[in-house]
Structures are given as C-alpha cells and as structure tokens.
C-alpha cells in the first residue's frame, strides 16, 4: 500500500521523545517544513515537493535574556491557526514561539523553575492550536497554559491556566476534522493515562475526564468527537470524547507507542512505537449506530529503529514521514 521514498537527511539525529516530528504543508509555495528535536537543538528542513530543494535551519533552546544557559528540548510542533502558523518549541526552561519558518522568535514564556534542583522534573510538553486564536501547552506539573495569539504581531498573552491534571502532561490535540458540530474540541493526556476533554472559548470548559490505568498515554488525537489514545502498553484506545464510552481497544504494538496521527479527510490512523513498527489503520464512524470501526491496513518496519515520530504529510494520508532514535534522517513513505 505504501512504498519507501528517498529519505531527507537532517543535521543531527532524533532524540527519544514522544511525537518527535513536526510537519507543516505550505501549499502555495509547494513546500513542506519538518522539525526534529536533537537534545537542545531543533533541526528544521524545508523540502520542496519536487524533491529538488532542501534547506536546513537549526534552532537552539535558549532564553532570550539569559545567554549563558541551554536546556533540553522536549517537543517542537507546528500550530496552524486560521490566521497564521507558528512553530512552538518547549523545553526545560520554557516555551518559545517562532514564525513557522523558524526565522523570528515572537514569544517566550519562562517556566517557574526552583532555585535548587528538585526531584520533580520541570518541562513543557504537549502542544496544540485550538479554535481561532489559542495555543495550548502542557507542563510537567500537570497544568495547561492557554495562550491567546493575535492574528499578527507578537502580542501573545497567557489567557488561562487549566488545572485538572495531577501528573505531567504528555500530549494534547484539537479536533482535526474541521467539523463544527463537535462540542468537544480539545483533549489532553497525562503520565497516568488520564484524559481531559475540553471545550475551548474565552473560558475553557472541562467536559469530561476519562480516568487512566497508571500507564502513560504518550500520544492522543481527536477526530469527529472520538479520542484516539496510544499508551505505554502498546495499546490504542478509542473513546467517545464527551461520554468517555470505550468504543475500541487495539493491541497494536509490542512496546511503548511514541506517536499517533490522523489524516482527517480519509480517517486513516498512523501509529508508531519503540518496537520499530509503523502501522496504518482505517477508522470508520457510523453516527446512526454511534459506533466506531477500526481496520488494520498496513505495517512498515524500520529495522533496528525505535521510532519516536510519525506523521502524515497531507490531510488524506497519501504520504507519511517517520523519525527514530539515533537516526539522522526523515524516512518518507507514499501510497503506491
């Protein structure tokens, strides 16, 4: 179903971090941006669709004021708002927001870090854009920071702090189908596997809490009112977001899942894990019977590679890209 394309070389290898691949399609310019985190550096590649041009950029994790400190980066993700695209980078020290091409840093938010080292790690992880103008970022303490982003300029403000999770946030996602009918438009996951379902707006509203089972939920997606969650046990679970009803449970991988992605137009689901496998699934929702069906379509084994990032490159799931620990390339697959 899919075949391997020419890989994209990157300047440094990928670190073992959840969802360690960012993809943004710039259709008017026939370009795709990719980001991969390596320790304290974000490797960025802009690739032309004809495969002829690749340009590289590296972003360092650095606070704007304190030149003497670097910290490890946890995640880099593109946030596509209706008015603008931003690249958000989270680290042990704080949150950086760049223009999507990485050229200008438009905002910096420092995390509260204690003077002396404590056993509790401090970092931000879990990034998503939601609604017209919000970017949400998770923090290791369990809180979620909501930033209000104007349609242009750097006047980004922290508008709300959501305190529902007790454990470190692992990932966040907004409704990706574009459907206006879904009440819930944001889901957040934590290290205990707990999921919170939200309705965004001037004040974010908690709609539902789906309890975990003491196992990290490392990656989460929201599609047509269904939460798709991947866990450290290698399982994928599908819940109805607002009721928390379990629709499906898949024994998907033999090791920790590191990344999930959905192609919203086709309902294809991508899952990738430390077991070196990437799998493609098909989700079908039947609103009449309120049921979800999951079918397995395809396996791709990246030999001897613990996969840390996997993302579709377009809304139909025609192509996807994969990164793995210690690997200095982005591997691409396209439908045959």
């Amino acid at each position, binding site marked *: 179903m899919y075949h391997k394309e020419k890989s994209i070389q990157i300047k*440094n*290898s990928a*670190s*073992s*971090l959840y969802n360690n691949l960012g993809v943004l399609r710039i259709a008017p310019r026939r370009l795709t941006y990719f980001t991969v985190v*390596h*320790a304290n550096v974000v490797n960025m590649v802009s690739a032309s669709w004809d495969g002829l041009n690749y340009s590289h950029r590296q972003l360092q994790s650095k606070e704007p004021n304190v*030149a*003497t*400190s*670097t910290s*490890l980066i*946890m995640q880099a993700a593109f946030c596509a708002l209706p008015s603008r695209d931003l690249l958000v980078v989270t680290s*042990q020290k704080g949150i950086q927001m760049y223009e999507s091409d990485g050229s200008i840093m438009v905002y910096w938010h420092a995390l509260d870090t204690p003077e002396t*080292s*404590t*056993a509790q*790690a401090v*970092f931000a992880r879990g990034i998503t854009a939601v609604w017209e103008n919000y970017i949400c970022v998770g923090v290791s303490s369990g809180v979620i920071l909501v930033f209000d982003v104007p349609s242009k300029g750097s006047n980004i403000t922290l508008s709300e702090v959501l305190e529902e999770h007790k*454990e*470190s946030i692992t990932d966040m996602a907004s409704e990706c189908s574009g459907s206006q009918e879904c009440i819930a438009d944001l889901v957040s996951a*934590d*290290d205990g596997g707990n999921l919170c379902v939200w309705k965004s707006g001037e004040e974010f509203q908690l709609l539902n809490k789906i309890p975990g089972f*003491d*196992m*990290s939920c490392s990656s989460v997606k929201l599609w047509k009112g269904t939460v798709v969650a991947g866990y*450290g*046990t*290698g*399982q994928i679970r599908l819940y109805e977001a607002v009721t928390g*009803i*379990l*629709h*499906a*449970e*898949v*024994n998907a*991988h*033999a*090791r*920790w899942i590191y990344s999930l992605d959905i192609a919203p137009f086709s309902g294809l689901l991508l899952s990738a894990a430390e*077991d*070196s*496998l990437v799998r493609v699934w098909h989700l079908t929702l039947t609103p009449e019977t*309120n*049921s*979800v*069906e*999951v*079918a*397995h379509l395809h*396996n791709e*084994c990246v*030999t*001897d*590679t*613990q996969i840390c990032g996997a993302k579709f490159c377009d809304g139909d799931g025609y192509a996807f890209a994969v990164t793995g*620990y*210690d690997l*200095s390339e982005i591997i691409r697959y396209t439908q045959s």
Partner: protein
Amino acid sequence: MSARTLPLLFINLGGEMLYILDQRLRAQNIPSDKARKADWIEEDRRRVMNDIITTMFNKKFLEELFKPQELYSKKALRTVFDRLAHASIMRLNQASMDKLYDLMTMAFKYQVLLCPRPKDILLVSFNHMDAIKDFVKDTPSILSQVDETYRQLIEMYTPLTSGEFQLIRQTLLIFFQDMHIRVSIFLKDKVQNSNGRFVLPTSGPVPHGTQVPGLIRMFSCTGEEVNRLQFNNGGSYSAAIREGSFEIFGDRVTKLGTNMYSVTRPVETHMSGTSKNSTQHTKVNAAPNPLAKEELNLLAKLMGGLEVQKPGNTVDSGFRVNLFATDEEEEEALISRPDELSYGVINIQATKDQQTNAELAKIMGEFTESGDQSPSASSKGDDLLAMMDGL
C-alpha cells in the same frame, strides 16, 4: 530532564567497569603470560575490586550522587570514572582507559535501549548490584556499604510511575545519543550491526503488562464486545513472561545487566571511527558549554567524596592492567584512535578557577601535581593518567 538519572547511570556504568576489570585481572593472572612485569595474584585482584567498590559506595560520595541533579556531560562523567578506576593500586594508561570506557558505555546503552519497559532499567541496575555484592561477599564491611545503597535505590525508585521511568530512560538515551562504537562481543552475538546500531528484535516475549499485538476489539455503548478482528503484527511475538523481582533479594528475570564476560568470552573492542558510515553519526557539539563552570563545581563536590589511594613510591604499587591483548596493540590503539572518539578528559585549570571553591582546588592540586612530576611519559600522550602510569 529527569533529575533522578545520575545514580542509575553511575551504578550501571560502575557495574560494567567492575565486570571488565575483573575479567582482565583474571586473564592477566595466567602464568604463561611472561610478558607481564608482575603477574596478578588472586589477592591483588581482590584488593583492586574491594578498593574500587569501597570508593564507589563511599557514603559522602553517594550523598552527593543521590541529590536531584541534571546529568553531567560525557567528559565530566568520564573524569569521574578515570578517578574511580585509579582508586586502587591498579593503573590503566590512556588507551586502555578509553577502551574500558567505550565498553562500559556501549554495554549500558545496549541495556537501556533493549530493556522491555522503562521500569526494567531498575532490574538492570539490580543485576549490577547483585553482582557487586557477590564481588565483596567475603568482606562484610564493604558488603554493608553496598547493601545500604541497595536500600536507598529501592526506596527512591520503586515508587516512581511508568512515566517517570520513561523520562529517566529518555534522559539516558540523550546521554548515549550518537555513540556507535562497535563491540566485538556484541557483534559476535549478533546483537549489534557492523554500523554500530543495536539489533531490535521483532520477536520473543512482549514486556510484562503488554499484550501480543494482533487483536482489535470493538464495543457497543453498553460495553459489550460486538466485534473482534485479528491482524498480522509483522513479527513473531509471544506472551509476556513473569515480572522480575524489585525486592533486595530475588530473581530479576532479565539477563540485561548481568556479567557477559568470562574466560571464554573475553573483553575486546573494535573502533568504529574507521567506518565511514559511523563517523557521520559521531558528531560532537564543538560549541563551548556555557555550563562548564557550574558543572565543574558540581563535579568537584561529587569527586570530593571519592577518596583515591595515591600510589606510593614503592615498587609493589602501580600494577598495570592492559585492556588489549598485547602492549603493542595498546600503543597502536592510542595512536590510531580517531579524534572524534577522543573523550578529552577534563583538564582542570588551576589558574582560572582558583577562587571557585576549596574542594575543587584540592582536586585540581591532586591532578596537576602528578602531571608535573613525570613529563617524560608524554610519548604515550600527554594525559595526566598516562603520566600516573609512570609513577
């Protein structure tokens, strides 16, 4: 990332170091090996092992080690192990120390990468601790020191959640990132490829708590299972085996972290720097580390607890151990070692940091002093440790 990583890194690397030294000390104790200046006798081997283990588990040192903190750079940690390896009467020169450190780090990288669940890093550590206890089983005073650390490990780590263990594992993997040194014992066992990457099997038992992939279950709104589908998982997995014991005594089940060396499986390395493919991956961040000074201070604090027995001027001190088959091979390795694999042990500069703190100054004093005494040893490299060999 995780501030709980350093104790596990230190204990597991230390454990691997002890396995290798034990094997080499036994191997060099063969009477037919006439080339040695002094044959090791059983008593010397035991003395070296005991001295190093006593130093490793020094109370003051461990107090510093167990404080929550970020990991040191590779260079800084290498400096700690240089010192630890020389905590007894045994001496290693630069090439042997490089090789020892390569073997230790690649072994632990393998264990971290292959451990089925992040939590199993603790079982790997317990395998090392069990072996260390066995090394000192006849010396009650050291044994009680090791047992005390064992209790500390259990107290600190067993309450951690799966997510916290994953963060520790990810922190370790960043530490070991881009290290692709080929190790002959791994190549022979076919667990490492010729490009230095480890083999990840898609077969065998799944981790405890994980189901064999291949089943999709769908439920109705009332929670009834309405459909069940099988799929091809692309591997040949079997059901999980029993979980290892997280108690002070018990069966760890996993073999990761146990001693893989023996008389019939000796210590050997290949250097990967000659392979074109792997040099591409060994990129070292050449930018000066702005944290270097802060790190030096922490390091000095930590090393303040490492009591090192200084070699006296008597003839019986300074037993030399070679990690290579012959002295010629050892010299060859030193010359041919590719630059990108050079650890460049931290050279603490007395003039720059004199004001930092007394502890640091003390350590610096110890290092520079021995360097000044034997400038003639520079033919084997200017490193301080090589100079110590000349003593």
